[in-house]
């Protein structure tokens, strides 16, 4: 089972962080190892996921979308139905339990679309932690609703003004905060990136998505799906979904990155398709870099995918060929956002709309006997202002 004890997924992963933080991640790894063996921890997390977050989430047959596309039958894994409206809470509740176990009283987080920030703020409110969320100024503009939600929940939202003022800078800033606060603060990292044990731990907390999907699908269809599709920014919903299917060679796994204005322009966030192997935010993975190793700005219409790095396990899955990584442009995601809304009565998050966009290309090429599970990682209420602006509409 990957990663190894030092967090390596093949050549990817690791722990490339300042010495100041090393004792904290070492302690976190030890505490997480102990928590995994502690049945009371598992029971408490399961109870929170059930009674507070709203698990299990539905597996919905998307009948009108299936009929429209005229190919494979499509199911939606409804992470959009969770409390806070996205899969991020699966992870923040787990890490909040760990924070309490470590005796820390303050949590920090980075956020792009604000979904992880909101899920962290919710967990902090529930556990009585102090909470600071770092968010790029550009994302605060794009996701003003989530900024307000975090503040209502008692979190401080710290604007990040450096660089592209998006998720990358928010993550750098959160790590810099942690440099000074590490003795009493836990960093609730929201994706499957960062130094070990984060990529493994976040994947494990998110693997409830894949576990439920597998059980629900088997019960319903008596077999496994032919394809499973999820969007990939840092890659947490995809990792949580894929990890329960990687052992089933017959199940095709497809991760969808953000192609922004197109892969042939500099404005995209397709790290796995266009990046190089490098170091960013504590681990070795594919990253968008220039020839010197400076991080390049990413672009996506969706703040949650607007990140020039990706979790190391995705890089591993790409290089060993287990997962296919493709991309969808801003325009395709916008189109998919509207299509799913009108055909299924479900407004998807712009992040998830990238997965929808790929399914719209994939399903017609498959037969009616085949099946696709699409991980609908979040709902799109937060995106309505941004989408309205792009469509030239007024709210």
């Amino acid at each position, binding site marked *: 089972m990957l990663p190894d004890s030092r967090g390596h997924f093949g050549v990817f992963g690791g722990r490339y962080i300042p*010495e100041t933080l090393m*004792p904290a991640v070492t302690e976190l790894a030890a505490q997480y190892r102990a928590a995994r063996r502690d049945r009371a921890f598992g029971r408490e997390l399961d109870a929170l996921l059930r009674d507070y977050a709203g698990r299990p989430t539905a597996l919905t047959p998307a009948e009108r979308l299936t009929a429209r596309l005229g190919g494979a039958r499509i199911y939606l894994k409804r992470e959009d139905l969770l409390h806070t409206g996205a899969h991020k809470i699966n992870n923040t509740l787990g890490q909040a339990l760990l924070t309490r176990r470590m005796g820390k009283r303050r949590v920090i987080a980075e956020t792009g679309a604000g979904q992880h920030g909101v899920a962290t703020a919710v967990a902090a409110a529930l556990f009585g932690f102090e909470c600071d969320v770092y968010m790029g100024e550009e994302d605060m503009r794009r996701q003003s609703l989530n900024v307000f939600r975090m503040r209502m929940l008692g979190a401080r939202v710290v604007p990040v003004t450096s660089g592209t003022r998006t998720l990358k800078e928010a993550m750098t800033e959160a790590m*810099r905060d942690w440099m000074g606060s590490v*003795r009493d603060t836990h960093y609730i990292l929201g994706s499957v990136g960062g130094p070990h044990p984060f990529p493994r731990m976040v994947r494990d907390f998110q693997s409830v998505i894949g576990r439920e999907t597998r059980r629900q699908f088997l019960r319903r269809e008596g077999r496994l799906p032919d394809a499973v599709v999820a969007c990939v920014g840092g890659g947490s919903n995809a990792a949580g979904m894929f990890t329960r299917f990687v052992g089933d060679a017959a199940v095709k796994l497809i991760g969808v990155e953000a192609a922004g204005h197109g892969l042939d322009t500099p404005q995209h966030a397709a790290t796995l398709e266009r990046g190089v192997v490098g170091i960013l935010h504590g681990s070795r993975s594919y990253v968008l870099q220039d020839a010197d190793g400076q991080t390049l700005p990413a672009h996506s219409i969706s703040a949650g995918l607007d990140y020039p790095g990706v979790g190391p396990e995705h890089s591993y899955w790409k290089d060993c060929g287990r997962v296919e990584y493709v991309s969808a442009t801003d325009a395709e995601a916008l189109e998919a956002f509207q299509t799913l809304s009108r055909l299924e009565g479900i407004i998807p998050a712009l992040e998830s709309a990238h997965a929808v966009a790929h399914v719209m290309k994939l399903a017609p090429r498959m037969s009616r006997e085949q099946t696709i599970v699409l991980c609908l990682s979040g709902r799109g209420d937060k995106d309505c202002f941004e989408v309205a602006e792009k469509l030239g509409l007024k709210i």
Partner: protein
Amino acid sequence: MRNRIDEAFARTQRAGEAAFMPFLTAGDPDLATTGALIEEFARRGADLVELGIPYSDPVADGPTIQASYTRALARGFRLAAVFDMMKELRTRCAVPVLTMVSLSLVTRMGAEEYFARAAEAGVDGVIIPDLPADEGGAVARLALRAGLYPVFLVAPTTPPERTRIIARRSKGFIYYVSVTGTTGARRELPPDLAEHIAAVQSVARQPVAVGFGVSRPEQVAAVARIADGVIVGSAIVRKVHELSALPRAELVAAAGEFAAELAAHKKK
């Protein structure tokens, strides 16, 4: 192998001083000025110079150094130009220089090539703040093979068993991070600094230099009494930036004066 870093510490120890090590951001305001500043600092009491290589996403640096990196990158800083500047500088200046460089940049070029080019350009050591010693064995060996000293950091949060690993891997000196946090000026040095340094010295054969949060002459004096080296970063970077509107010669002279005032306090 005799390295200029060893010679600098041997000389300052004989003189009853701590080694004074100012930090400069390469390319802020421009590389020619950086080269002139290294030369001036060497004349005005710097025993070694730490040269920060601009990086887009520094995790260990505070706002002052981060802003200097952003300025240098905005002006088109390229890594290869640092080696050209160093090569040219070495025709007239022998002060030991260590590059403080993110593993992201070293990895992109390839560690072997980075170290080879740095050594050829006359760089003496390398500090990689995002490479902890226990992950850094292979990289450290490559640096040594190229003739560069790999210097690792010990933080206030480092437990004794890690300090021993770091002491084994770090060559030339150990960089003790005085504060739990990013680089940048602090009003006060931590009250338990002397104890921490003594604990590191008890397991280290090499000198221990102290940086992060050291900015004022009296702080230099206090650190000089208890450590083998004193590193001043953000205060110098801020000074250079404040002077950056001046013609180069005036900037260099004024920054040199500032460094000399700090260096004057390195006597034990």
